């Protein structure tokens, strides 16, 4: 009896283990044992998996839209929001080639996710993509892989009251020299000119994304674009951008806790008027308004290298949704894309994100930021892509972040080390491609 019990117990344990490790049952009809008839019943069992990177108000709105989609079509959407961990989540899933049916591409629809995404060129919404981002989300092969629900517009966020107190006219900041003059005036009235939330070093990566294009790639006549792309760029010339960060640090433009402050502290400082500028998109403004609703905050174009170079803003995809090319639910995923591309749905989501809509037939209500968006999207302001996404191999973002932190930390030889790390990392990442 004991022997029999032992064998049965072992068999049960092994069986349980095997069941746990076995493949999940397919969702197509027949497997579940439920009687299926007609197309509607087939769809009603489909659950799309959707990974998105946004957090805050937009997540709730997105969930509400997906619930309405399910009510209308019978197709369920299981949304997961890993937030800032999306890079880790998606890289792991790409490595195992088990991607979700849909995901938001957080700026990487072409460079990183292009080979995994279904081209969307045949979709109706493509002709409505706003011109400011259309080129930025089009691959070299002419393919567009995502539905851009909103358009990322990234300029310098500022507190208008601090600038007024320091007698700085925002529109007069045309070059980096003007910007430094403004910082001097702000510092003179006892405020922090430029706030970095360096606990997460991405704040320093943003610095390079803001300043490097103005030095190396913005000028149509004299630029280093090809050198960055073909690998012939002499990294010794990277010193120029590093020296700007070093100079700003030495001149005391940065907050004392530039290396350790977190995002919430930064937003509060901007909202309360303790700091004048942040090199971040309007997200910081929306966040700052949650604690300082009456703060007068705005967006400024990024200054040019000198008066011969135009000011610019960084544009690109933000809340952009793509479909996995090998998804077993292509048809249902496309239905969701069509649903999201409806002008009223797109406008609703872009409004919740606090950004202009990514489609020209949808009008987002960006509230107090609307006049600033209108201003920075005017013809005299150049729209440029994120520097690291366009000119550096995927994976070099971390180098920008960490080397920037080293420079601000005032480590001896930080600039030389930065140059060497950028050179080495560029070569390593190029070899991976």
């Amino acid at each position, binding site marked *: 009896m004991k022997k029999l019990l032992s064998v049965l117990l072992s068999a049960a344990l092994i069986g349980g283990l095997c069941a746990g490790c076995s493949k999940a049952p397919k969702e197509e009809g027949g497997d579940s044992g439920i009687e299926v008839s007609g197309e509607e019943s087939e769809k009603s069992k489909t659950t799309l998996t959707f990974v998105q990177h946004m957090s805050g108000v937009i997540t709730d709105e997105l969930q509400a839209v997906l619930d309405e989609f399910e009510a209308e079509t019978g197709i369920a959407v299981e949304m997961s929001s890993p937030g800032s961990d999306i890079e880790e989540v998606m890289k*792991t899933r790409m490595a195992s080639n088990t991607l979700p049916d849909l995901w938001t591409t957080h700026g990487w629809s072409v460079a990183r996710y292009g080979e995994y995404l279904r081209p969307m060129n045949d979709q109706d919404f493509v002709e409505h993509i706003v011109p400011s981002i259309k080129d930025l989300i089009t691959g070299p092969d002419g393919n567009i892989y995502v539905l851009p629900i909103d358009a990322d517009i990234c300029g310098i966020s500022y507190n208008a009251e601090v600038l007024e107190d320091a007698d700085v006219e925002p529109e007069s900041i045309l070059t980096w020299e003007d910007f430094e003059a403004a910082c001097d005036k702000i510092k003179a009235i006892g405020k922090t000119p430029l706030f970095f939330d*360096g606990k997460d*070093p991405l704040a320093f990566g943003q610095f390079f994304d803001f300043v490097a294009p103005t030095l190396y790639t913005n000028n149509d006549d004299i630029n280093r674009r090809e050198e960055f792309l073909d690998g012939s760029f002499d990294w010794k010339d990277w010193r120029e951008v590093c020296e700007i960060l070093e100079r700003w640090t030495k001149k005391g433009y940065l907050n*004392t*806790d530039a290396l*350790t402050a*977190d995002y919430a502290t930064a937003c509060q400082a901007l909202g309360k008027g303790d700091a004048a500028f942040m090199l971040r998109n309007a997200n910081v403004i929306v966040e700052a308004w949650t604690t300082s609703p009456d703060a007068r905050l705005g967006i400024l174009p990024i200054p040019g290298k000198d008066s011969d170079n135009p000011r610019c803003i960084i544009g690109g995809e933000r809340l952009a949704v793509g479909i996995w090319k090998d998804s077993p639910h292509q048809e249902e995923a496309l239905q969701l894309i069509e649903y999201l591309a409806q002008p009223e749905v797109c406008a609703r989501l872009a409004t919740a994100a606090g950004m202009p809509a990514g489609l020209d037939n949808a009008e987002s209500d960006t509230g107090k930021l609307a006049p600033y968006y209108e201003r920075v999207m005017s013809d005299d302001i150049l729209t440029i892509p994120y520097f690291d996404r366009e000119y550096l191999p995927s*994976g070099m973002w971390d180098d920008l972040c960490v080397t920037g*932190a080293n420079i601000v930390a005032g480590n001896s030889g930080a600039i030389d080390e930065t140059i060497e790390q950028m050179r080495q990392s560029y070569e390593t990442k190029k070899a991976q491609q």
Partner: protein
Amino acid sequence: MMKKRNKNIINLFYVPALILFSVFVIYPFIEGIRISFTNWNGYSQNYTYVGVKNYIQLFQDKNVRTALINTLIYGVGSTFLQNVIGLLYAVFLDSKFRGRMLVRTIIYLPVMIAPLVMGYIMYFLVQYDNGAINDILAVFGRQPVDWMNNGSRAVIIMTLINSLQFVGISMVIYMAGLQGIPGVYYEAAAIDGVSGFQAFRSITLPLLTPAITSAVVINLIGGLKLFDIIMALTMGGPGYSSHSLSTLITNQYFRAQNAGYSAAMGIGTFLLIMFISNVTMRYFDKKEVYS
């Protein structure tokens, strides 16, 4: 014959554990070794074998050297503090007094908190703006300090936080050890006129060696693998200055997209922890005294 068959059946019970161990430990470990010889970026379907290049780079990389030193500080520092304080707590709580259980619970309570949560709680203590410590300094008219902006100081602070969080584990181990020492030894020593400290040095400590071995090895491995608190407090920064090997491995795998190099670092860390743990265990094995 019957005994042998029974033994075989009993051996069957190992099978599920062995399968789990193979799937979740042995297979990933072998895969890790394989990946460490490639230049894989961590997600692409393509990569090339680069021989021992990643291992050579390990010895040349200044950031690995910094992380290695930090890891040793996290490991050895935490072990030292946790064991000294844990032993003192245990000796103190071994005596009978009112509220003993409450004190024991309070000391052990932080162990129940996830280290990541502990890290975020501690951030509110050490942050520059509105941090509790700086608020206290302000009361005394002192200037605020940006505690975590210096890598070396951040490493010491995080070692302290880790030690204080997990000191309860050492305390419990030592309390169990103390309860296992027969009272007759102390009685005999008292008759011989031995002082309290002498009794502690000559009776308590030698007989606690098995407990010390357990506590030291557990704390050492925990300290050498320190991860969550670093991620919550500094993310390894400023720059790479407060990274441990564990956080640097994650950084290199996901952020820097150097999965091959990260795997090589992982193998190196495994060997290091195995070596240190073994040396420690052998050392304490020789010292063990049985009552």
